[in-house]
């Protein structure tokens, strides 16, 4: 088997194996084995990252509209952290779901979402990308809904609503894009004139997935609702699909897009700020992490915005964004997965391991020097200087502030999850440790493995630079302590004012009212069920019809009365006569 055949096989297997696994789940006797081997499903993707050649592609002529799978540089990076995340999460899920009532259902959606995620990274043509994107989006709804309680249903509903909106926007955007671009091959797309509607639609559509500001509110609802391994991939891998969408489909590096750039930067910064403010008051660590993701994605969004403003330095910016994405994905994944072990820490060793294991990614996210976060921050910052207008100054001030916010949230998260006293834990919790520790290890090395990552570091590490990198961390930590101290005097529940899902919560009420009005009965608890309404309406409609019918029947009766009928006859004769005599 030659190299290209192996390449093709891997390309096919990366999304194919998870799908096969999902199908295998339908066979009852295979289920146990399949679920034990969950992480294996992500292995071909990982192998592809390691062994695959960039530029290789696989045509599937009979599938869809000429599906093409391929691997390019950007895709390789995405696939890298994505596959690691899926692998460790899948591994983690084995233990995590040991006592879940519906493990099969979880795995089914897990596999499908995985397949979609890998597929969209490898997709070289628009339809395949869209198909995989949708597969991922819908399947992850299954993950969010998995627990099935009220919270999960609410989260699932909000998630699905926004996901579907995103699908529609993206679909429409894609159609515009392919019409104006004249092809469905992603690589050849931008030659044509880029259509403005496509730009807007894709910006918004992928923005939903990426949790961009004002489209983000599904995130803090979905993450806590989903089981931990699902949250990890949702936050680490699937959020990045939106980012990949922007990178793939916006004409970044080809044309300056002042308006889009402005929008993206504003939204990104806004998300960073909002995430901080709402995030720090949350009580559920997963919600805190979700808001942290909003903030972090906000910074990435800002990066994309910069790229939109400065097409000529897009390659640099792209690289920075990729580093940031990788770093965030791994670190956030590690934090999510860490929640389990932190709870389950039994022995002293375990407690210390858990503390270190949580601290490391937290520091990385906060952008401590020598971490992947520090690297990412430097990478982003290095591009600010070229920005036109006042953007450089604004970002110069705001980005460090965002870092402060991140530090604050990390402190809050650690506060909420800090592994404390050893306590007896269930047996299965043992299985949570290896995948988590692997992922923490990946956090440590991941971002540095990116091609050219090391070379991008500042040539000399001066104390000034070190200080520059560290002060937000320290300030954040200080603020956190201050907050904890203040908290003694203020016992109110801040989440009442800043509930998880902020904007979405504001929208829910009026939407419910609309629904109520339209269905003509009290709004049901959830999802749907517009029962009696239609019957009632039928009744009302019938009554109205009957009234109309009665009126018509009266006219009809009067027509039937002899004098009227006779007069009508005479009139008819008269009319005809008159017309004849004309």
């Amino acid at each position, binding site marked *: 088997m030659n190299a290209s055949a192996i390449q093709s096989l891997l390309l096919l297997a990366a999304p194919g194996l998870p799908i096969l696994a999902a199908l295998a789940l339908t066979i009852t006797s295979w289920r146990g084995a399949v679920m034990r081997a969950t992480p294996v499903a992500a292995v071909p993707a990982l192998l592809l990252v390691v062994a695959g050649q960039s530029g290789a592609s696989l045509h599937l002529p*009979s599938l869809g509209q000429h599906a093409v799978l391929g691997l390019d540089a950007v895709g390789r990076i995405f696939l890298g952290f994505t596959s690691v995340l899926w692998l460790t999460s899948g591994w983690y899920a084995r233990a995590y779901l040991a006592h879940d009532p519906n493990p099969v259902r979880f795995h089914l959606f897990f596999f499908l979402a995985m397949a979609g995620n890998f597929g969209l990274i490898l997709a070289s043509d628009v339809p395949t990308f869209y198909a995989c994107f949708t597969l991922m989006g*819908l399947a992850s709804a*299954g993950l969010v809904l998995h627990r099935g309680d009220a919270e999960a249903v609410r989260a699932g509903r909000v998630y699905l609503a926004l996901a579907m909106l995103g699908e529609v926007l993206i679909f429409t955007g894609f*159609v515009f894009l392919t019409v104006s671009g004249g092809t469905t091959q992603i690589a050849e797309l931008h030659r044509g004139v880029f259509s403005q509607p496509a730009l807007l639609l894709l910006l918004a559509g992928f923005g939903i997935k990426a949790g961009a500001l004002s489209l983000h509110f599904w995130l803090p609802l979905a993450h806590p609702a989903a089981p931990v391994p699902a949250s990890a991939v949702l936050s680490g891998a699937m959020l990045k699909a939106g980012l990949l969408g922007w990178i793939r489909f916006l004409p970044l590096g080809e044309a300056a897009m002042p308006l889009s750039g402005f929008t993206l930067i504003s939204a990104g910064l806004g998300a960073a700020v909002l995430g901080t403010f709402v995030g720090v008051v949350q009580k559920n660590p997963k919600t805190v992490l979700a808001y942290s993701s909003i903030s972090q994605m906000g910074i990435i969004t800002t990066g994309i915005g910069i790229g939109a403003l400065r097409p000529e330095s897009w390659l640099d910016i792209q690289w920075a964004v990729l580093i940031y994405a990788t770093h965030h994905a791994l670190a956030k994944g590690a934090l999510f997965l860490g929640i389990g072990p932190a709870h389950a820490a039994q022995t002293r060793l375990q407690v210390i391991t858990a503390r270190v294991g949580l601290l490391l990614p937290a520091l990385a996210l906060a952008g401590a020097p020598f971490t992947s976060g520090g690297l990412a921050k430097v990478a982003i910052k290095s591009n600010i200087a070229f920005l036109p207008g006042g953007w450089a100054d604004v970002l110069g001030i705001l980005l460090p502030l965002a870092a402060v916010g991140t530090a604050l949230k990390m402190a809050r998260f650690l506060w909420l999850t800090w592994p404390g006293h050893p306590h007896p834990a269930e047996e299965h919790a043992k299985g949570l440790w290896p995948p988590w520790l692997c992922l923490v290890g990946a956090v440590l090395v991941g971002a540095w493995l990116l091609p050219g990552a090391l070379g991008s570091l500042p040539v000399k590490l001066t104390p000034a630079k070190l200080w520059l990198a560290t002060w937000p961390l320290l300030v954040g930590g200080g603020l956190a302590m201050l907050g904890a101290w203040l908290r003694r005097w203020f016992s109110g529940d801040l989440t009442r004012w800043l509930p998880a899902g902020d904007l979405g919560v504001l929208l829910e009420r009026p939407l419910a009212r609309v629904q109520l009005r339209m269905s003509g009965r009290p709004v049901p608890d959830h999802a749907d069920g517009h029962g009696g309404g239609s019957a009632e309406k039928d009744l009302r409609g019938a009554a109205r019809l009957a009234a109309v019918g009665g009126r018509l029947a009266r006219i009809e009766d009067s027509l039937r009365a002899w004098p009227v009928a006779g007069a009508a006859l005479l009139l008819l004769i008269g009319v005809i006569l008159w017309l004849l005599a004309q």
Partner: protein
Amino acid sequence: MNLQSPILLGILLSSFVTGLVIFFLKEESHRLRTWLNLLGAGVKLVLVAVLLSGVYRGEPYNFAIEFLPGIPFALGADSNAVLFVTLSSVLWFCTTIYAVGYLEHTPHRSRFFGFFSLCVTATTGIALSANLVTFLTFYELLTLTTYPLIVHRGTREALRGGKIYLTYTLIGGAVLLLAVVWLHGLAGPVVFKERGVIQALVGTHRGELQVMFLLFILGLGVKAALVPLHGWLPKAMVAPAPVSALLHAVAVVKAGAFGIVRIVYDVYGVETAATLGVLQPLAVAAGITIVYGSVRALFQDELKKRLAYSTVSQVSYIVLGAAILGPVATIGGMVHLVHQGIMKITLFFCAGNYAETLGTHRVSEMNGVGRRMPLTTMAFTVAALGMIGVPPLAGYVSKWYLQKGAIQAGEEWVALVLGASSLLNAAYFLPILYRAWFNAPPEQWPAEHRVGTWETHWMLLLPPLVTAGLVIYAGVFAESSFSPLVWVKLIAAREYAP
């Protein structure tokens, strides 16, 4: 009469004769009836396959006898006809199996299957009609043969539904008749032809042609359930499930949509119609219907009603495709003719399965049906996702082409409509899926009874699975040489030939 024409007649007669024979069967001889049904459906399927391959090879198929001077009764098999006749014969086969299973142990089966066969005869007649008068004849025949099916149960509700159906369709038929006669007077016998037959009249009879177009659309729009002519469709839901499946996916609604396609493409010719300026309003009407149907569907608790409104919405995709000038939109609309058929028939089969096996008729009663009837629910899921337009299922393909066609034609607002519709589709289908798969099943179903060794009778299970398979096939292998899409592309190419 060439060698090919017997095939056309055979396709009609395979169900017509079956139907007539079944009428005379005793109620008890259900085995014989079942075999007759399957035989008829099978023969039709084989004949259609022969026809399909023949047309593919480019052989001409015509059959004509003069039954009024200058107005021949004519059958033909152009690519449009073949598309529709294939769809209806395949789906009929599935529906027959399903109906046999569904109606086991119910009274009046001879009557039912007799009219059932006649109904399909009318549908295939519509498909194979080569001129407007023949088309009209079968179109009316369809109305009359469907009515007994709708009122089959004989309940008050059924009679009411049937009444409303008749009222709507007979009036629609009358309007259509007017249009046909009018056009006949202007242009003589109208034989369907690609790119239309009325170009010569555009200069002299512009206004008349416009009014006629309106009449055509009003007449056909009743069956195609264009808003506000759709009122009968949800009311006709009282019919047994196979009938609903047939109504929505194969026969009535589809006949209306197919009629509009015929009028736009093969009578007026899409380019001529565009110069007459009648396409834009049609597209707007279709757009309104799409959104309206979806919104109404959102608030239906009764599963079949929800599906009915969904049909109202989805069928207008076809109309929309026809109303947008451009080959790509044509492809989208025409392929949706097939795709909507297989998706909707699957949904109705499944709805019927739930009703028949568990006694659940309402969405709110569907908690946990996925556990009790996984295969059925799987089929339902596939079809529902297809309806939403999830790739790579059938619905996605049609939506892609429609959207693309609309944008190419500069009708960007269509994108908005389709987007809204997709969202609404999701909003009314996804909760069902959630209930089905995620919620715990109730202690007791409203009226559960075990049928067969599978989750339900195999004759009820097989058809939705097959059609769900078709939904996947039509989407995933859309580019393969035996997909509806490829066929439709051929049609579009002919319609827009330089």
